[in-house]
């Protein structure tokens, strides 16, 4: 089964990141404003118009705290589209990468020819009632005083350090490379370069997780447009093909003793995506990895098979900058560009497209032909992240 090169990204759009509404008196924009803005940027990039999407695909990421389940339909109304195929990206932070697979499959089936995938959130400007907590979190976590994802990722990070001897120097290398790339990306939010000592000395948030380990919540909207290869060739930008796709939701079940909590589902979904694309590790020119935390990026590099589990030497000798052996987070990632809830992960797709078009500016990876993108969603009870989705993108079919 394959959807290799059966669809291509032909347009991207991304609003600037802001934190409007975090201070009293600041103007507040709604999610609708960001979503419309991102769409118009993507339409302009692709050279398509709004009404081209009537009867076609519309995919919408579903923000974690949004109080109503019909958000994708509401987005169609906000934008003025009558989709022929409406898909919600319901895998949390993995949503935008999940939509790549779902829409490419729909295009490959002939159901649709083009699709707009979009997401936005304005956590600082809009105030939700806190959403509905799943039963496990409500009954078995919150009564103990857990403080959101920080508490759980802290336990993953501490155990990895205990089991493999991982230090803040190993982890900090990822933080420093990401911020360096952000300093070269005019669209990034945090752009002042940091040193390894800045990382190590940043404030403890949930021991051992520090401030510079954590993603930056922000308002914003992001969009991309997919098309069949035939349609893509007639449009203005160089097509970026979806060459491989793999998804593993709920990669393990049950909360049980042992070290499964240090292994991410990308171990399987990455293998599926790379086999579909027909690429080996040496053929991948860069990684854009879902980055809610630095340790999560670190684990993915291990579990995607770029090194053995616990191979500290690999992290010591590898240059992760755009000029290095394994460029990662070449635009700075969500940690430096901001995370508008579940739309945040779209950023990694957009940066991959820029690199594969040669639009990477000062941070362009030389001769970039193939890149790998991941999306991760949900932190289940007693284990590592839930839905783990991987896409391999390339600029040749």
């Amino acid at each position, binding site marked *: 089964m394959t959807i290799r090169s059966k669809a291509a990204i032909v347009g991207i759009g991304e609003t600037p990141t802001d934190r409007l509404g975090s201070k009293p008196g600041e103007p507040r924009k709604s999610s609708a404003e960001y979503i419309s803005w991102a769409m118009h940027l993507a339409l302009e990039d692709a050279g398509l118009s709004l009404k081209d999407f009537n009867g076609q695909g519309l995919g919408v990421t579903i923000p974690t705290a949004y109080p109503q389940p019909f958000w994708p339909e509401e987005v169609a109304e906000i934008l003025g589209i009558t989709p022929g195929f409406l898909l919600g990206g319901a895998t949390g932070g993995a949503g935008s990468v999940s939509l790549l697979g779902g829409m490419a499959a729909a295009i490959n089936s002939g159901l649709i020819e083009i699709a707009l995938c979009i997401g936005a959130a304005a956590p600082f400007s809009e105030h939700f009632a*806190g959403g509905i907590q799943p*039963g*496990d979190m*409500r*009954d*078995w*976590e*919150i*009564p*103990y*005083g*857990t*403080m*959101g994802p*920080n*508490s759980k990722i*802290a*336990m*993953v990070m*501490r*155990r990895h350090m*205990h089991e493999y001897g991982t230090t803040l120097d190993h982890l900090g290398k990822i933080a420093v490379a990401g911020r360096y790339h952000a300093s070269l990306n005019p669209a990034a939010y945090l752009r002042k370069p940091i040193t390894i000592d800045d990382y190590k000395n940043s404030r*403890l948030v*949930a*021991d*051992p*997780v520090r401030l510079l380990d954590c993603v930056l919540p922000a308002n914003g909207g992001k969009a991309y447009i997919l098309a069949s290869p035939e349609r893509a060739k007639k449009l203005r930008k160089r097509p970026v093909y979806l060459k491989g796709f793999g998804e593993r939701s709920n990669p393990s*079940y*049950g*909360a*049980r*003793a*042992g070290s499964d*909590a240090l292994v991410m589902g990308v171990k399987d979904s990455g293998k599926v995506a790379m086999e579909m694309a027909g690429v080996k590790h040496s053929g991948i020119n860069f990684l854009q990895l879902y980055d809610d935390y630095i340790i999560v990026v670190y684990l993915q590099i291990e579990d995607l098979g770029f090194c053995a589990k616990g191979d500290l030497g690999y992290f010591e000798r590898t240059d992760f900058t755009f000029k290095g052996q394994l460029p990662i987070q070449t635009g700075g990632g969500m940690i430096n560009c901001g995370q508008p809830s579940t739309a945040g992960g779209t950023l990694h797709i957009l940066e991959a497209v820029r690199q594969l078009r040669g639009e990477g500016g000062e941070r362009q990876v030389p001769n970039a032909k193939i890149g790998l993108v991941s999306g991760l969603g949900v932190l289940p*009870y*007693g*284990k590592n992240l839930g839905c783990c989705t991987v896409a391999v993108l390339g600029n040749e079919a």
Partner: protein
Amino acid sequence: MAEVNLRKPLPAITTEAKPFWDAAAQQKLVIQRCHGCRAWVWTPRPSCFECGSERLEWTPMSGKGEVYSFTVIRQVAGRAASKAFEPDIPYVIAWVDLDEGPRMITNVVGCGVEDVKLGMKVSVVFEQQSAEIWLPKFKPSPT
């Protein structure tokens, strides 16, 4: 026993989990076990995640385990109800691996936060939160 604080968020006593809370009120830790394949099933659910059997039996546990990992909460954040935990700061959130196999999210109590270590042997204690809810927590086992 900890001071009863009704403002802390409490678990919902669903029909599925009621036997767990009834046992906890009697200072007993019970977890579902599959009658067919003998798998321990945690958190509570209607059928076995290994074999699909609906014949799950609430089974007494030894109440012993070890700390797989932990964090120390030194500030509250997020939802308003988090404020109720402020008087407890600093406190430990841990993954405790029970000797029988399941992993629980819990608090390690009965020692200083600096004394908690990975691999530390712990045993269950129950702290009353409301008339019906006694939360299983863990304290260092005597060595």
